[in-house]
């Protein structure tokens, strides 16, 4: 019997993002669709940045997780349109990012506050951070640098 897609979504929600393991690939909003095509499960994945080195690993992790659940035939479809946007990050994902020390993206183009001390006195160090999706910011109160997940 084929598992229902709702159940599959809950399994995928346990697959961590390889670079930010506190959030799942579902929280990140890159899993766009899960559907059965005969005996094959088709999972549509939208990459974050074109050059994101994690994209290949993410597809592999999804396949492995589904194989472990007994689904034999998995087809990952890369879907680039519409392009991924940080608006697709789930609210749970945003909260987890903040707890982890990464300020979640905001339409205003900068972090709301320092993830560590919650001060709103923050300043940008560089628009590019440790991965393509992050910028480097610093808190001017506790003086700690932190990552900001930038809008795209």
């Amino acid at each position, binding site marked *: 019997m084929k598992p229902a897609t709702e159940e599959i979504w809950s399994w995928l929600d346990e697959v961590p993002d390889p670079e930010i393991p506190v959030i799942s690939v579902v929280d990140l909003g890159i899993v766009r669709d899960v559907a059965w095509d005969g005996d094959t499960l088709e999972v549509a994945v939208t990459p974050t*940045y074109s050059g994101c080195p994690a994209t290949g690993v993410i597809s592999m992790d999804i396949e492995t997780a589904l194989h472990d659940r007994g689904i034999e035939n998995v087809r990952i479809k890369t879907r680039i349109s519409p392009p991924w946007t940080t608006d697709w990050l789930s609210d749970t994902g945003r909260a987890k990012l903040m707890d982890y020390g990464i300020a979640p993206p905001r339409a205003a183009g900068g972090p709301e506050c320092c993830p560590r001390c919650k001060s709103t006195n923050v300043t940008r160090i560089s628009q590019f951070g440790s991965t393509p999706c992050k910028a480097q910011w610093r808190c001017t109160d506790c003086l700690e640098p932190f990552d900001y997940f930038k809008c*795209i």
Partner: protein
Amino acid sequence: MAEVDQAQLFEFLCRMGDNTLVLGHWVSEWCGHAPVLEEDIALANTALDLIGQTQMWLGLAAEVEGKGRSADDLAMLRDVWDFRNVLLVEQPNGDFGQTMMRQFLFDAWHLEMLGALAGSSHDQIAAIAAKSVKEVQYHVERSGDTVVGLGDGTSESHSRMQKALNLLWPYVGEMFAADAVDNAVAAAGIAPDPAALRETYDARVGAVLAEATLSVPEDGFAHKGGKSGFQHSEHLGHLLTQMQWLQRAYPGASW
């Protein structure tokens, strides 16, 4: 609208993909060598974006060509005369200032081009452009800021930036000069007429260069021959010997 000849569409896609491939490779050479850590990281990220965009453009080019070649085959197994990038992006890194000037002059064009391509009559091209343009907005913001910072910096950084501008400016014109391939894709609503992007480009670039206290060379001479493949500069061959070495020495090698 006119139907496009598939051979010309292939040429156009190679131009887009070769621009990002060649520039992405040059920029990646800065990894571990940039003057400060933040710049090192920013350059590496920019290179990654460009190489990622290359995979999409050359992947589509290979599909359109229909001869069973892959994006990797196009990137790693073609020789100089088959490359279709503009001459600007194959100019060497030089010093950090020259790298950033080259980046800005390209980014400003790239942004306008991708913005127009996002409305392409060709769905796959529109999708690749819509995705890439978001990344390029970050590239141009940073390269523009750096050109201003260095141009309007110390007398040493100013003179180096002016030298870089004088060196690279003659390569700007090629991006806006239409040929048969450009005309064919424009007639089919696939891509804009390159000349139509010039006004916005000049406005953006002019504003940044003015803020950077740099003067645009008055001589309007423009080199050409890169995107047609007719006459690449010597630098492209040197770049390919580095980039393609592994696939040439160990054909078919993979991770």
